[in-house]
C-alpha cells in the first residue's frame, strides 16, 4: 500500500469532488465549518459523508458487480427488505444483534439468488436483478404490511446515528467496509479474477478461474452491502420504511461506480474511486439543499453536473487534452 504514489490520488474524480465542494462553499460560506458538539463532529462536510455513506456502501458492492460486466438493480429493494427484517425482529423482542444478523442473512440470500440467476442460469444481469428489484420491495412491504415499523432498539439506532471517534457510525462503517473490501480484492487474487471475468469470461474460465463461484460471490457481496446500507438507513430514522427505503438508490450506486471510473463493460475497477463517486453525488445533493434553490430545479442541476463530470472524464476530453498539450509543446519549441 505504501507504494501508491500521491499522484494517483489526483485524478478527475478527486478533482470533481473538490470542485463540487468548492461550489458548495461558494453557495454557502459555512460549508467547511466543522464543530465539536456532544462528543461528535458536526458540520455540512460531515453531513456529506454521513448521508453519502449508504450510497457509498452500495457502490462498494456495485463496483465489484459492474467490474464483472454485470449490474445489480436490486440493491434498493434489498435495503428495504433488510431494514424491514431488522425492524420486525427487534419489535418481536429479539436483541439488536440478532436483528442485524437476520438482516445480513437476508442480504446474503438475495445476493446468492441474483448470483445464481446470473452465473448458473446465464440470465442477463440487468433482467436477473430486475426480478428482485420489483418483487423485493413487495416482500419488504409484506413484512411491514406497508407501514413504517418504528423501533428504538439501541443497537440499530447506534448503527444508524451513533458515533465513533467523533465520526458518525455510517461513515465509520462505510470506511471500514471500503478498506476491508479493497484489501480483500487487492491482497488476494480476487480483484484480478474479477477483472479477468469482466473482460472476457470465457477466456478467464479457460485459464482456470472458477467464474461461476466468483460471480455468485460478487453478487452476494453486493447483497450484503445493500443489507448493511438498509440497516443504516433504518437505524437512522429509527424505523423501517419499506415503501421508500433505498428507492432509486440503485441508480445512484451505479452512477457512483461509473463516476468512479469503472466501466459498465466490465474490467478495471476501483472501490475507493467509487466511494469518491458516491461522495460527489452526495455533495451535489447537499449543495442543492443548502443553496436554497426551489426544489423543482434539483433534477436539472443534477443532470447538468453529471454530464459535466462525465464529459471531463471521457476519453474524448483526454484526447483533446493531449492534443492541446502536443500543440502547446510544438508552439513552444
Amino acid at each position: 500500500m505504501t507504494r501508491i504514489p500521491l499522484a494517483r490520488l489526483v485524478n478527475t474524480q478527486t478533482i470533481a469532488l473538490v470542485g463540487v465542494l468548492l461550489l458548495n462553499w461558494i453557495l454557502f460560506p459555512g460549508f467547511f465549518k466543522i464543530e465539536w458538539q456532544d462528543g461528535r463532529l458536526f458540520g455540512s462536510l460531515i453531513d456529506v459523508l454521513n448521508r453519502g455513506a449508504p450510497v457509498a456502501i452500495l457502490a462498494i458492492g456495485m463496483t465489484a458487480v459492474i467490474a464483472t460486466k454485470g449490474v445489480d438493480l436490486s440493491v434498493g429493494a434489498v435495503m428495504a427488505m433488510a431494514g424491514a427484517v431488522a425492524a420486525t425482529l427487534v419489535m418481536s423482542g429479539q436483541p439488536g444483534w440478532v436483528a442485524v444478523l437476520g438482516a445480513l442473512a437476508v442480504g446474503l440470500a438475495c445476493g446468492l439468488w441474483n448470483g445464481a440467476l446470473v452465473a448458473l442460469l446465464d440470465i442477463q444481469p440487468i433482467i436477473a436483478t430486475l426480478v428482485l428489484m420489483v418483487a423485493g420491495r413487495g416482500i419488504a412491504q409484506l413484512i411491514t404490511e406497508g407501514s413504517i415499523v418504528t423501533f428504538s432498539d439501541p443497537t440499530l439506532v447506534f448503527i444508524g446515528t451513533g458515533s465513533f471517534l467523533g465520526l458518525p457510525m455510517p461513515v465509520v462503517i462505510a470506511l471500514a467496509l471500503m478498506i476491508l473490501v479493497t484489501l480483500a480484492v487487492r491482497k488476494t487474487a480476487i480483484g484480478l479474477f474479477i477483472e479477468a471475468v469482466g473482460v472476457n469470461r470465457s477466456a478467464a474460465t479457460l485459464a482456470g478461474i472458477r467464474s461461476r463461484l466468483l460471480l455468485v460471490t460478487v453478487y452476494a457481496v453486493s447483497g450484503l452491502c445493500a443489507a448493511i446500507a438498509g440497516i443504516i438507513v433504518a437505524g437512522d430514522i429509527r424505523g423501517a420504511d419499506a415503501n421508500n427505503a433505498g428507492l432509486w438508490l440503485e441508480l445512484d450506486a451505479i452512477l457512483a461506480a461509473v463516476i468512479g471510473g469503472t466501466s459498465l463493460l466490465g474490467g478495471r475497477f476501483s472501490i475507493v474511486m467509487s466511494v469518491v463517486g458516491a461522495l460527489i453525488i452526495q455533495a451535489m445533493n447537499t449543495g442543492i439543499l443548502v443553496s436554497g434553490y426551489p426544489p423543482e430545479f434539483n433534477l436539472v442541476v443534477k443532470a447538468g453536473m453529471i454530464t459535466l463530470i462525465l464529459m471531463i472524464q471521457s476519453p474524448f476530453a483526454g484526447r483533446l487534452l493531449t492534443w492541446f498539450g502536443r500543440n502547446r509543446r510544438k508552439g513552444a519549441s
Partner: protein
Amino acid sequence: MNRSLRPLLATVIIFLIAYAAAVFQFPGLLSTRVLGNFLTDNAFLGIAAVGMTFVIISGGIDLSVGAVIGFTGVLVAVLITWLGWHPLAAFAAAFVVAAAFGAAMGLVIHYLEVPPFIVTLAGMFLARGGASVITQDSVPIDHPFYSAVSSLYWRLPGGGRLSFVGLLMVAVFVIGAIVAHRTKFGSYVYALGGNATSASLMGVPVARTTVEIYTLSSVLACLAGIVFSLYTSAGYPLAAVGVELDAIGAVVIGGTLLTGGYGFVFGTFVGVMLLGLVQTYIIFDGTLSSWWTKIVIGFLLFLFIVLQRLVFAASARGDRVAEKA
C-alpha cells in the same frame, strides 16, 4: 425454420398459453372489451417500446423514455392551454424538441464514449426536471381537437372499443417492423448491436446511426407522450414514471437480447401484450394487496425469462444436433 425466430415463437406460445389459462379462470377476459382495452391502455407503452427495441438491438439502452413522455405531455399541454397553440402545432414543436434531445444523447454516447446507461440516465433527470421546472401542476388540455381524437373509436361487437390510439400503436409496430427488417437503417442497427467494431470496419456509418437510433427512440417516446396526453387530456410532470423499465421488460420478454444484435419488433408487441395481460389478470383477481402485486409481477417476470432461457438453450442444442445429422 430460421433459428432466430424460435425465441419469438416461444414468446407467442407462452402468451397464448398464459392467456388461455387466464380466460379459463376468468371467462370475462375473452370479451372484446378487454381486447380493445389491451390496445388502448398499452398504446403509449407499446409506442415507446418500439423505440426501445431499436435501442436495445443496437446494444444500447434508453432510460429517458418515461421522462420524455412526461416532458412531452407537459410541453404540449402548456403550449395548448397556456399559449393557445393548435394541438398539431404543439405536437410539431414537441417532436422537434424530442428529436434534438435524442440526437444530443446520441452525440454524447458516440463522441464522448460515455455508456448509454449513464447518458440516458442524465437525460432522464434532465427531462423530468425540465418538466417540473415548466410546471409542477398537472395541466389539463381542453381543446376540441383533443376531445375529437380521444373519443375516436370504433365499437366492436360485445361492447369493446377499438380506439384511435390503439390503432396508432399497431401502425407504429408495423412501420417499426418494416424499418427494422427491411431498410438499410434497420440493418445498421442490428450491425451495431452485433459488433460495433466490425460494423464500422464494414462501412456502417456508426456515428450517424447511433444518433439516429436515439433520435428515433426519443421521437417515439414523444409520440407516446402525445398519446398519453390524448389518453389523459392533460400534461403532468410526474406522468409515466418508470415506464422505461416496463418498456425494457416488454422488449426483453419479446425475445430481444439486451446484449444487442438479436430481436424482433413484433416480439416487443407480444411482450407488451403479456405485461398487459398480467396486469389485467391481477385486476380481475382483485384480491392482491399492493405488496403481493409487486411480488407476483416479479415472479411472473422471473418465470418468463427462465422459460425463455430454457427455450433458447433447447433451440441452441437442437441446432447442433441438426447440423450433425
